[in-house]
């Protein structure tokens, strides 16, 4: 479950030809995708506001 992956840095953009052929390797069924995306906002906790104390 907790598989971890590190993606490789792309050195530069591939050409259109290479990439469209690669893209078709796996087709995305866009209608069926679960497209949720969330981040945890950097919050100020009442326990962390005391930044101007002495």
């Amino acid at each position, binding site marked *: *479950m*907790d*598989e*971890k*992956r*590190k*993606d*490789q*840095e*792309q050195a*530069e*953009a*591939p*050409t*259109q030809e*290479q*990439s*469209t052929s*690669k*893209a*078709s*390797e*796996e*087709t*995305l*069924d*866009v*209608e069926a*995708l*679960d*497209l*949720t*995306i*969330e*981040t*945890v906002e*950097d*919050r*100020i*906790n*009442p*326990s*962390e*506001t*005391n*930044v*101007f*104390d*002495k």
Partner: protein
Amino acid sequence: MSFPITLAFVPQGHFTQPYLALPCLKAWLQEAGFADVEQRDLSIEAYDHFLSPDYLRRAKERVRERLPLNAFEGRKSLPLGELRAFRSAAESEVSADAVIADVEGAKAIMRGEDFYDVDRYVPAVRTLYHGLRLVSAAHYPSELTPHNFTMGYANDRSEEVLAATLDEDQNPFIEFYREKVLPGLLARKPRLFGLSVVYGSQLIPALTLGRMVKEALPDCHVTAGGGFLAYIGEKLMGATGVEECLDSMIFHEGEAPMGELAEALRAWDEAGQADLSAIGSLTWFKHTDVGCETVANAPAHPVALNAAPPPDFDGLPFDLYFAPEVVLPYDINRGCYYGECSFCTLPTVIGPGYRTRSAETIASHLTDLRDRHGVRHFSFITDCMPPGMIRDLPEALIEAQSGIPAEERMKWWCDARIEPRAYTKEGAKRLHESGCRKLLFGFESATPRLLKLMRKAQSPRSVSEVARNCSEAGISVTLYAMVGFPSETAEEARATLDFIREHKDVVREVSLQTFHIDEVALTYRDPEQFNIKILDGAGTDLQLYHDYLSEQGMTQQEAAEMFDEMMNALRADLPIFSGDNIYYFMQKSHYFLHLARGTTPDEFVAQCQQRTEAHQAREAAGLLRANASRTSATLPFSHVAAANTLAHPLARAARPDFLTGRFVADAQAVAEEQLEPLPPQECVLVYDEVGHEFVELSRDGLRVLEAIERAGNVDNLLQSLNSTNPGARTRLTEYITQLHRKGLITSFQPATAVPSSFTEPHELTSL
């Protein structure tokens, strides 16, 4: 005869600049004839040590052993009590390598010219925060942040505090002291060792070190003092077992007692006997044949501040602080000239009486400190600036720097009280001219009824006038505001918020705090006046803060919820609070350093606004590709849901609070009962290694990123889509916009050999 003294500011204090206590003591002791005084800021030394690749590498391994992520697999639900462990394990898993790789760079950004580049600053601050989360996870359930250190032990029970000093599994400072502090002390052999404890967060680290020093150097006298001990010191010195960590404690102002203690110990060394009973404000352990007795001496006389030497910062590691220029603290006065506010206990900390240095003395000390240390910036440590000083100090500072171009003159910030007669248009202009760039005013509330109960002797109208005058003069205005004062209603709290919003053109920051009752304040001593009933914690022999029941207005719980409502509104309305600009507010002096460099508050606010807007304006347009510098892990529960539940006021109450580290009675049980356990939810936690942010996606989201990667860029992917459904395209385009805003997709420059169709940005939204 040599008499080495070592003074230590123990962890945890904030990491941007030194604190004032040790430099004042060092200067005093040296003037009293003790030439060999060493001072160490162990708080910044510890932060620097923990936030290093080697340490973090070890922390990462420890997290894997102590909080393995696969332990959460297959679970039917995750209760509140395990959410922090889960969150820590998940975050460490995806962020550790990137944090280890970037932590030295992040510190260098904080300490150098890149600090002023916001696009470098924000990821660097995040790297430091995430490094501390890794350190915390390695010592779970302990938590070290830039503003706090808490353990699984309650700070208001001496038994727990003392047990925490021996728990190496959870107390990261034991190893730190053993490796980084004790060897130097063993070589130096101080005869007197002083611990400075300003905050509750320092209590356990101080006693931990006291214990270790007493064991390693039995002849060294270990004493402690500082703001936090002014509140709970008496109780602490009465608790069994503390004599293993300390020999004595100094109350309130430390200079005179410390000098006399050093004299007495030196006499002891020379004559074989010493009398500690005549030292003012000292409480000490008298060891007799039958045991150990606590002796509390009479209070010392306050020092004549104007005759006291300027603080001596020699020996502090200026290059370690997380700021490009060190802002030095300087005490212009001690005590509060007003001293009437019913909630306030600040005047208690330093001891009785109000004393001030003269404007000429201040100006001459500051120019000396400037020349000696090559610094230009100061934060004046004062409960608030008195009106006479507001008038005289600018003249003295301008006079002392005549002939120096305005931009090279010293700049400063400090706390202040609303004094409309002093902060006139002309007065504010003079203050700005003398280098004042930021003032923090005690505003507290916009409701006259509450201001009267608080005995603030100020009106909202005067706040408005003072804020406007200062802001027009170019001084940034911060307001301290309070939510949950006894009897305050939700409407009254919202009136405070409305007032701030109406003044957002002149109020740049707000330090909002929830109301606490501590044992020194009038609210505790005379609760009937405020219609409240104070609750006592069972078995809490070091209790300082108390829960209470109020017959009118919001409950403590409602006030905690109101805090969130107000904070969310401030995040939406104040540019410095918007998005990740909030980091400037959260790191002491960081925003001020921009002001000191010549950026006006208006310019800074405009930059923050532009940045937030530019972020929001990112679309799925232009040459975009997946940000390949990312690490991801599939999780059995939602990281975001865990973080949100942990941020709920009920869950927050179950954690030790800022000043005391105490657990509110029954809070954990109440929170467990009311906050639903998390259901399993497979998701992917991604760490963006460029922006240093956590983003949570579904598995499909990761597939989209991979598809963009295979396609080479976003355009290619969209062109290759088989779907002819325009709704599907729009949906994907909107998602890609979101990925772009979260930093998982970035724009790029085409490589030179790219076909011509790629040199023109393609507007995806028109597909």
